[in-house]
């Protein structure tokens, strides 16, 4: 009660209270900055799109399917075709491959049954794409799908569906 009655004592108490507020504010700012700058930049969404673009460029050029995949109005069952696409999924910084891509070719008249499927990369990550459809979790892989139409040399139309998957979670998400 003495402190309240004494004017100078009241000032001192106000100073202590003020410093306590400053410390709380500082603590909050430090914590926010630590969380903000400690979280890695997530670039996997861009990477999946770039991967799909690279695969699409390899499959089709100028609206025509690569001649190693289509000949005389039919698709060639060249399942290792993606090895010709200059893609490297191994890296010294990862134990396992962190990428996966899958390409499906459909006749324009039958979009249910795939005529040809090409795969490259670590297929363990595909199951996580299914989980992401229902529950978005950044710790999982990033999946993206794109489709485009292309013609073979006999002008048959095909729908080409490309799935791109990038994991690299440890370097893009704070786990």
């Amino acid at each position, binding site marked *: 009660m003495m402190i309240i009655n004494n004017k100078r004592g009241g000032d001192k108490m106000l100073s202590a209270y003020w410093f306590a507020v400053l410390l709380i504010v500082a603590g909050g700012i430090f914590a926010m900055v630590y969380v903000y700058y400690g979280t890695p930049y997530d670039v996997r969404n861009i990477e999946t799109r*770039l991967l799909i673009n690279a695969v699409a460029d390899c499959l089709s050029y100028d609206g025509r399917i690569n001649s190693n995949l289509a000949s005389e109005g039919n698709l060639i069952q060249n399942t290792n075709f993606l090895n010709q696409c200059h893609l490297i999924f191994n890296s010294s910084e990862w134990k396992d491959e962190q990428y996966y891509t899958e390409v499906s070719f459909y006749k324009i008249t039958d979009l249910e049954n795939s005529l040809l499927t090409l795969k490259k990369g670590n297929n363990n990550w595909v199951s996580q794409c299914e989980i992401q459809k229902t529950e978005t979790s950044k710790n999982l892989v990033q999946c993206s799908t794109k489709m485009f139409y292309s013609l073979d040399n006999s002008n048959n139309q095909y729908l080409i569906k490309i799935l791109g998957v990038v994991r690299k979670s440890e370097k893009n998400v704070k786990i």
Partner: protein
Amino acid sequence: MSVMKNNRGTILIENVVFLILNILFLTILILFLYKQGSGAIVLEQSYAKNIVLLIDAGKPIMEMKLNMEDAINLAEKNGLKREEIVKITGNTVTVKLSSNGGYSYSFFKDVDVTAYPDISTEKNYIININGYK
């Protein structure tokens, strides 16, 4: 000066000290925020990922110029040469802005890439995609 001698003067000194401490506190806080934003760890990660995305988006016989002024300034302040900042080994890009550490990130294009600092006064880095391996 008469204020300093009496009781009220003591209160003024206390207030001045209090004000100085507050300013000191705010200065430290602002310096901390600035240091965090322009720190080596943040810039290393940012530039490594930036270069990887440029390579993945690029095509053979492409030359790309990347302005790395803030990174080069920081590296030189930390005693590193410009040539030591970006290293490309296999398909991994490593950006190093201080004597310890560095940040690595890999690209998926199987291309032969070289990176070297621009000889002009502008603080750029040149990334050349020479061709497919």
